[in-house]
């Protein structure tokens, strides 16, 4: 789970990592109130879980109250790289002398923790690493070991903090490590970690975390009841939320063919098969794509299958639905009972294309055949099933939107 900047700041603040004063606001009215307490000039920062928001116009400096309100009215309705802005942070503007980058993350390849820093902060880390690879300093921490003041001080010197800043930088690195370990994070990033203050007054200068990004490990949620406040109810997809309640993993995509399967790999593979079969061709210029990812898991019951179909069919963009099951623990017969339950009791009318293999596949297919339902089609292989689901979706979309398809044909 990625946190918004205003949430990440709370976790840094708990460990006394210096951050600028700021208030979270959701309307221009709240922004006006926030400016009163933060003062001017201030920075209005759109809250989104995606990088490069500054270039997209999501961060603006305001010298007057009117500017602050106008800025927030620009930013609040924005969608940045597909992510809807969720409020703004009204932050005191600091005089920046220099910007550093520091992060601690889980390194999947070396299976340890990676402290990464550079004197060139302020932009995205990928750009920094690309432009100044020689200045990127890294320290790998073995999961059996700890990060201590000596290592942090050595690291701070290597990064290139000036004399007087080394101790403060080392302290911040250690505190970031504490945040990382105690919150079960997979990423704690401060960018920029800025040197702020009056250039002519040495005593005013200090380091301050001007922006932060934190990702938490979803698997550790059971030992962090306090994370409930981070759940993004406002931006949550209602179908994703409903699936989660049933312990199902559902991801909404933007196509027309619903996809249900057992096992994350097989479902991803089914999505790819649908997208492959749905590429525009000479016969049809309409691209057919998967509408969702839904994994019913291992050993799913008939009820789980019926609920899954109901969730997928609730997406108004879904026309046909591909059901791809390789029965290992899961019984294809049980899945067939779930399908029939959904069709018969819930009145589902979307065309279904079913492919069964493995455990009780024959029995499952027999049940479907006996039902003799015109909405249920059967295919032998995943590839055939995907092609069939695509061709049904193409007819359905062609018929429901004949103007569009005629235009496309011309």
């Amino acid at each position, binding site marked *: 789970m990625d946190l918004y900047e205003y949430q990440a700041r709370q976790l840094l603040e708990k460990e006394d990592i210096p951050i600028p004063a700021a208030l979270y606001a959701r309307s221009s009215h709240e922004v006006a109130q926030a400016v009163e307490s933060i003062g001017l000039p201030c920075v209005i920062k759109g809250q989104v879980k995606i990088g490069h928001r500054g270039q997209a116009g999501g961060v603006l400096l305001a010298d007057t109250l009117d500017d602050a309100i106008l800025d927030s009215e620009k930013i609040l309705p924005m969608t940045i790289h597909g992510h809807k802005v969720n409020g703004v942070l009204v932050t005191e503007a600091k005089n920046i002398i220099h910007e550093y980058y520091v992060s601690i993350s889980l390194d*999947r390849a070396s299976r340890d923790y990676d402290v990464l820093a550079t004197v060139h902060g302020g932009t995205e880390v990928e750009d920094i690493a690309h432009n100044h690879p020689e200045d990127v300093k890294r320290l790998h921490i073995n999961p059996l070991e700890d990060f201590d003041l000596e290592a942090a001080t050595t690291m701070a010197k290597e990064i290139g903090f000036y004399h007087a800043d080394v101790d403060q930088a080392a302290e911040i690195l250690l505190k970031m490590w504490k945040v990382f370990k105690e919150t079960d994070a997979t990423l704690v990033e401060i960018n920029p970690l800025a040197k702020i203050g009056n250039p002519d007054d040495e005593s005013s200068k200090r380091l301050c975390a001007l922006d932060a990004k934190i990702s938490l490990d979803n*698997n550790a949620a059971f030992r962090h009841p306090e994370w409930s406040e981070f759940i993004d109810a406002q931006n949550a997809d209602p179908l994703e939320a409903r699936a989660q309640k049933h312990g199902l*993993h559902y*991801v909404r995509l933007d196509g027309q063919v619903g996809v249900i399967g057992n096992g994350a790999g097989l*479902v991803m593979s089914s*999505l790819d098969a649908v997208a*492959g079969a749905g590429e525009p061709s000479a016969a049809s210029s309409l691209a057919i794509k998967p509408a969702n990812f839904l994994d019913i898991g291992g050993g799913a019951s008939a009820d789980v299958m019926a609920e899954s179909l109901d969730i997928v069919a609730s997406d108004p963009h879904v026309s046909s639905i591909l059901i791809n099951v*390789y029965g290992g623990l899961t019984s294809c017969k049980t899945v067939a009972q779930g399908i029939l339950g959904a069709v018969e009791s819930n009145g589902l009318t979307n065309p279904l294309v079913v492919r069964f293999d493995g455990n009780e596949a024959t029995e499952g297919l027999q049940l479907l055949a006996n039902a003799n339902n015109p909405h249920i089609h059967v295919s032998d292989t995943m590839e055939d099933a995907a092609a069939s689901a695509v061709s049904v979706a193409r007819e359905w979309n062609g018929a429901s939107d004949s103007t569009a398809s005629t235009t496309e044909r011309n």
Partner: protein
Amino acid sequence: MAMTPLFIGNDAPVIVQGMTGHEGMKHTARMLAAGTNIVGGTNPRKAGTSLSFDVNGSPVDVPVFGTVAEAMEKTGAQASVVFVPPRFAKSAVMESVDASMPLIVVITEGIPVADSAYFVASAVKKGLQIVGPNCPGLATFPAAPGTTGANLGIIPDGITQRGPLGLVSKSGTLTYQLMSELSDIGFTAALGAGGDPVVGTTLLDALKAFQADDATKACVLIGEIGGSAEQEAAQWAKEHMTKPVVAYIAGFTAPEGKQMGHAGAIVSGGKGTAQEKKVILEANGIRVGSTPGQTASIVRQVLAKLGE
């Protein structure tokens, strides 16, 4: 001629941690029916008792021990299969690591990655092998007469038989799918590496084992979005492998920043895409199938070329 065991020796004694739980009991019965030599389970509250399993019509009693160390001492167990729920998984796996269990297969899904990183690092330090977590386990198909191999985990038995292929995969159902598509050819072993960001046996580790195994003639590698395990395996294979590897990658249509079921299956910062993996695999001489079915066809062509 003595065979070098692939991952685990023929008929090696195995214990199950979490055997008395619902999942553990169900899968212990399955593993026994598949011929796995299960000699015990652990549960400190039920130590000294035993569980009776129906194995192809005849009852088999499996003793319950208080600790892994005791189970190893009494039975000589060489492997443990872990079915313990996420919140207790770290201490269960560490119990096996502390007892120096040579092979620990962790099936549990949903373990915090900090816990996995800790027990994997502990196992690496002691030279022990962890498979998983969040994996279907390991199935071996040894050639030695009178042995049925080891089925450690949840891979369904009876899909396939002994043959010249080695398979490693990040996904359970895609493992079964490819085993099924190539069931007539057969396998030396199928290893589920797992879908978590940190796993004990990487795709590369499995390729190393298959390269060292005389009976394995070609490998099937099933990857998915997230991380760079496929790329690292491919780079190693190009330099060190004499055996062909055929791959399949799932998740070409996965959007940025969305976790696709598995904890590790996520494209972040534009990295770990299926396309990036395919390009690097192909640049390292590994053919990548566009669907599981097409991947199986490529494997058949490759074997025909080898004269297998």
